[in-house]
């Protein structure tokens, strides 16, 4: 975040506007993420934080603004001030360095855990399965689910499924990982194992953008916290500052409610 200018920049969002029909959900969002940053985005539901995250990898399309990923323009305003995306092919290429983890896991239920991990490297990158398999096994060991490699996702707990989903995204070797409320669909006793996996990832200096309700994670694992409400960034800063001395009234009210 401090480092705005150079090739360290992983993600840059400028003047992002997005509306769903009459409702304007993003009202001019600006921020950058540098390599190795862990950005936690917090805020009440309906604040636009998930929509903002989904705009990064084009699951939603913005109406105006600029998005750059690793210095490459994904979308920018044309002469009329309307967002214009690059071609489908180029967009796919630019976004190939991003990975995403969803609230609902979205594992492929008809494939085993191992097949879930192999699918994209083999189908998208056209790598031979035998070459990918050792990497996939390594990732599964890392998230502690190697023994479950031949299970179908339906047989796993929510926390295990989410860890598989993280491993599946990592199998594509992304440079930036997006997390959309990764623990919100989990029973409280299962959030810990997922947060642990995410902390380990942060410790390895993976660049991460995490939309979350987990204040402890934001405080301890993130190096930058952003509070969103009503489609704007209300306040942001380093976690120690942000949580100790929030300035804006809405931030103070929100944090009081969360704690």
């Amino acid at each position, binding site marked *: 975040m401090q480092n705005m200018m150079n090739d360290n920049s992983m993600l840059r969002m400028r003047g992002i506007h997005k509306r769903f029909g009459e409702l304007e959900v993003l009202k001019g969002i600006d921020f950058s993420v540098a390599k190795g940053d862990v950005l936690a985005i917090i805020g009440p539901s309906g604040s636009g934080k998930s929509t903002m995250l989904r705009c990064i*990898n084009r*699951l939603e399309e913005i109406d105006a603004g600029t998005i750059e990923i690793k210095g490459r323009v994904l979308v920018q305003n044309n002469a009329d001030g309307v967002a214009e995306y690059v071609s489908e092919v180029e967009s*796919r290429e630019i*976004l*190939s360095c*991003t*990975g*995403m983890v*969803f609230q*609902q896991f*979205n*594992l*492929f*239920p*008809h494939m085993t855990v191992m097949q879930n991990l192999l*699918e*994209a490297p083999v*189908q*998208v*990158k056209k790598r031979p399965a035998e070459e990918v398999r050792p990497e996939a096994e390594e990732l599964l060991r890392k998230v502690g689910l190697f023994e479950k490699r031949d299970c*179908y*996702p*339906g*047989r796993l707990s929510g926390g295990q499924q989410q860890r598989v989903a993280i491993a*599946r*995204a990592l199998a*594509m070797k992304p440079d930036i990982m*997006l997390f959309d409320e990764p623990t919100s669909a989990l029973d409280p006793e299962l959030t810990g194992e997922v947060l642990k996996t995410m902390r380990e990832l942060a410790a390895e200096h993976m660049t991460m953008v995490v939309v979350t309700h987990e204040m402890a994670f934001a405080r301890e694992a993130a190096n930058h916290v952003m509070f969103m409400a009503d489609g704007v960034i209300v306040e942001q800063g380093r976690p120690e500052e942000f949580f100790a001395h929030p300035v804006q009234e809405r931030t103070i009210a929100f944090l009081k409610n969360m704690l």
Partner: protein
Amino acid sequence: MLMDNLLHTIVLMLEGTQVTLEIFCITLVLALPTGLLAALGRISSLKPVSLLMEFYVWIMRGTPLMLQLLFVYFALPLVGIKLPDIAAALLAFVLNYAAYFAEIFRAGIQSISRGQYEAAKTLGMTYPQTMRRIIIPQMIRHVLPPISNETINLVKDTSLIYILAMNDLLRVARTIVQREFDMTPFVIAGVFYLAMTFVLTWAFKKLEAHYAKYDE
């Protein structure tokens, strides 16, 4: 009925069964992929394609199969399209059944959650890859029961070619009944149809068990 006579009847009816099975198998093999293509066309974002498919399904489901058979068989030759008997029957069957299959496939595809498309997209998969690897394999599990239903209907619907003077199982039975004034062939025909649908029911049960190997 003498033993000899009965045996002769059964042999004749087995020949009829062969015609029935031919129509059934070829229709099924052609109508399933055609139906899938029509379903993909129906959900396509290309408006003309999806409208065309909607129109096709509307015509095929909105008119009797018997009428469609008669049309292909008698009306097409008037505009210069003369198909061999069996091909004419098959054309009508395939077009009709593909329309029903298309609706089943469409419902099946639309029952797959949006999260599956999004997960595939964020992993870099293209739309054709997503359909082929992620959506259609899951859809098959959902549509097996209704497809099984339609397939069993098809066995029985093949008897409609009786009006086109093709010697399928039912027509053979009726011919013998009219000649001998003996109702046994109708009973035998019933048993033959039951045997065919029994095998199908069993096969679909196996398929469903195979696809039930994972939980959703």
